[in-house]
């Protein structure tokens, strides 16, 4: 964190959000230790740092799993989904949105829009996109992941 602060010219309490963004990009999540460190360094109450980090969708408090599953919950994907893809993926992985499995292999996130509205429903796993997904296909993909992570 010290390096980020010195490299990016972070000086006062107005820079909390910028520092949080840099941290999120650098390490993939914000830890509670980070929050108290930022609070001490920039002289801002911890509650303010925490309130900023929880306000925006960009920040995560749990590290991503080895396989990070993002299910698109945009309008178009929603109206194109025949069966409840979200309940299905939760059931298959045993995770709720924003959670990471205990062994750190899988993590699940519902995102507002992945930007492929015409090809929905879309599921993104790490950098691979799966378009026009149905429940059958989804369960195959996830059971494949579960096997790999064993």
């Amino acid at each position: 964190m010290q390096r980020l602060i010195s490299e990016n010219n972070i000086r006062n309490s107005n820079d909390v959000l910028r520092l949080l963004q840099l941290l999120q990009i650098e390490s993939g999540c914000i830890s509670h230790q980070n929050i108290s460190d930022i609070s001490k360094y920039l002289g801002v109450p911890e509650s303010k740092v925490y309130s900023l980090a929880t306000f925006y969708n960009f920040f995560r408090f749990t590290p991503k799993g080895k396989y990070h599953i993002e299910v698109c919950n945009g309008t178009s994907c929603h109206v194109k989904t025949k069966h409840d893809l979200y309940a299905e993926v939760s059931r298959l992985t045993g995770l709720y949105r924003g959670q990471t499995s205990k062994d750190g292999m899988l993590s699940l996130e519902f995102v507002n829009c992945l930007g492929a509205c015409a090809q929905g429903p879309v599921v993104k796993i790490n950098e691979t996109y799966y378009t026009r997904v149905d429940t059958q296909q989804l369960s195959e993909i996830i059971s494949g992941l579960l096997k790999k992570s064993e």
Partner: protein
Amino acid sequence: MSDKAPDMNKTTVSGNAPEASGTVSYNHDTGVRIFLQIGTCSIIAGILETAREIRSYIQIHQVRAEVYECGCMGMCSSDPVVDVEISGRAKISLQKLNANAVTDIFDSLLNHILPDNCFILGQYSSGYGLPWEGVPFIDDLPFFSLQHRVLLKDAGSLVPVSLQQYQQIGGFDGLRKALYTYSPAAVCDEITQSGLTGRGGGGYSTGAKLKTVLQHHSHKKFLICNADESDPGSFSGRLLIESKPFMLLEGITIAAYASGATEAIIYIRNQYQLAIERLREAIRILYQAHVLGDDIWDSGMHLNISIYESPGAYVCGEETALIENLEGNRGMPRPKPPYPATKGYLNMPTVVNNAETLCNLPLILLHGAEWFQSLGNSFNSGTKLFSVAGNTRVGGVVEVKMGTSIQQVIDATNESMFSGELKAIQLGGPSGGFVPASQFDTPLDYYHLKQMNLYLGSGSFTVLNKNNCIVDVCKYFMEFIENESCGKCIPCREGSQRMSEIFRRIVSRPDDSEEFATLLRFKGVMQLEHMAGVMTRTSLCGLGQNAPGVVLSALKHFRNEFEEHIFERVCSADVCRNLKMFRINPENCTGCGICAKRCPADAIAGSLKQVHYIVPERCIACGLCFDSCKFNAIIKN
């Protein structure tokens, strides 16, 4: 003064003078030219793999070919789209070109044989080369012929980060005209006269906004371009920026000149990495070409443009919330007035405009206010982009004149045979509303939609057919607002939570004694109307004020669906699965036990070769038993 304008071709990277203004010129004599239409949508569809395959094909077969990385023309459901021009033949557009189809298609194309029909989108009628027989012209496809493309013109054939190509289609002529022949106040007047209104949904006159900032004295003024597009289901702005980044930058420069701003910030969603990458490159080129920075073209104007990657919050589409975010705070709206035009970012006068609005400016300056007015109807001028998605045959970005009927957009994206199945259009995302099929002749402009109590929002256009449940879509949007409400004012924060609760109650199976539960659910609908009214009247910002629009328009046009859910506990679209009940017909059940094995909730009891039974309390209504039963023994109601 116009003779002062420098010849910009000197400053571009490579110096070929354009042959004719208005079209991008290539040397048509030799070799093969391949145009990859790269956008976020096509990357998701796999164009990068296709491109790798094409490049290796060229290398292996030693084809003399040039490969261009172009923008995307916005026919997202056909991605990946690749245009190929073989010497002597018309340029042909290939759709859904997956990596593994590349070899076959290029084998035949290079021998002047048409590949399989499903890969052919159409051919261009540019006048060069012999047309392919039996291939439709791109301009004749309903998707393109029913549009009126002004902003998106050449979107699929330009190399987005080539300044030279952008200039060939008249780029920066508008800025040059503004800088050398108009005063800032005259630019404001020209824009006001054109009738351009904010495309982000507000519909406020852009010229008037710029003029307010211009007239306000301050040592520093800011211009913010809102390219956040946090509406789920809208992607038109992203396509515009990805395909023509210079157009946005030119628009920003014109708006900065008109308002006197010296600092511009592009506020863009962090997920739009490709758009950000192209904007950064374009900005770098412009600094090099002296179109940005100090003393632009010796006109005495200064402008710096920076990019801010937003951390993502729907409420930041509201201009004051956006400014709070830029200042490093929680993105919560401020009460207005003071408006940002007088007291905005860092308490300085600030213009906040949507990206699509700004992209219109170069064209207005270049072609004049009258031309722009002629594009619309008597209520609104210009064109509007719509992100067409949902249950439509062709999805993508459609640009039509203001006042075009909804039906025409539907015709462009659906074959007529599908129209009968359509139920409604959801316009404008969470702050918009529904238009039922009976009112598809409504003209798309701010005036007519306002009469129907609808906001255009940022132009998302989601097509719903008979397989979609209106109650479910309402619930989806309410839960979205519930998540995204910033929590500052009570009507929105509490109202969205209560309304979501009511929707959840309507779509779940009542577990109480029958009459009482129905009464509660019915009461819910009455409360919905009341709460929606309170939210509309008392919320602080546009997000809260417009959020109940979806519910109100649904209650107005689709009341029967609500009643069906409440009284009959049936979802005729078969979406609200919690209303479904499954039981086993003892006469048909053979006791094979397949359903019990498939049931994820262990809700089916029974021993082998005996009639099985579904325990209603355990059943999660997933329907797997219904799908797996071979003897039609499972009954759904």
